């Protein structure tokens, strides 16, 4: 696919309540892509974590700052990216939540969960500000994917 079709692009103010908006539109999209219940659930959790981080660490809960969510299908992969207006961080310095000294910490599990529930998690930091995390999930479940069938790829 030379021009992958974006399924949806959603922009929201930085409030935790808005995570529910992401959830409903994501769920409806995944349903349409014939994702099974489990996939929908875990992708949903991963996206919630990414959006929560964008709202909290990226935009510091400033409701005037935008979080943008983008969902598209590329080949067999579902790609969801979450963009904030923050200054980024060093993903290499994020602690491993499985280390004994971290096991009882109340936070630090979000990125770890994203990695567990998705097939790929990549951070990109834009010049001049903006953190973008791209989540990737293989969705060849043997189930028909209506979007691609329409384009005659099978």
């Amino acid at each position, binding site marked *: 696919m030379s021009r992958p079709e974006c399924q949806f692009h959603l922009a929201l103010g930085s409030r935790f309540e808005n995570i529910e908006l992401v959830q409903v539109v994501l769920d409806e999209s995944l349903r349409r892509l014939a994702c099974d219940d489990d996939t929908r659930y875990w992708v949903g959790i991963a996206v919630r974590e990414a959006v929560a981080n964008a709202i909290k660490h990226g935009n510091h809960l400033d409701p005037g700052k935008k979080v943008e969510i983008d969902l598209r299908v590329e080949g067999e992969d579902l790609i969801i990216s979450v963009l904030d207006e923050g200054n980024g961080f060093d993903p290499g310095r994020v602690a491993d939540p499985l280390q004994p000294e971290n096991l009882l910490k109340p936070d630090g*599990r979000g990125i770890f969960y994203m990695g567990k529930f998705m097939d790929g998690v990549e951070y990109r930091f834009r010049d001049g500000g903006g953190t973008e995390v791209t989540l990737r999930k293989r969705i060849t479940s043997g189930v028909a994917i209506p979007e691609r069938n329409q384009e005659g790829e099978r």
Partner: protein
Amino acid sequence: MKIGVRQRQGVTVLEPKGKITIGSGDIALRDSVIEALDSGSRKILINLKDVSTIDSSGIGELVAAYTTVTNRGGKLKLVGLPPKVSDILQITQLVTVFEVMESEEEAVDSF
């Protein structure tokens, strides 16, 4: 998210319902644990059977509750884990930390 609170044989049973996720439910859970401690309870059981979704913040609140209760000389146990809640605890190796019970009856007797 709503949290039900009841007493059963000297154990405070907390029953959160719905989502324990960032900005909704995570703080409520914390508050209800502290309230139970403040009212003298040292045996606290969280029944998670009606929890539909939990994210890393919710997991964090469970961990914080565990630490708080333990630090104040109490015991915190979990019961009624729906499969997905169990999975997410497992993934971050927290099933070893929490005492996860099979049934509420067994849980109450075990304190």
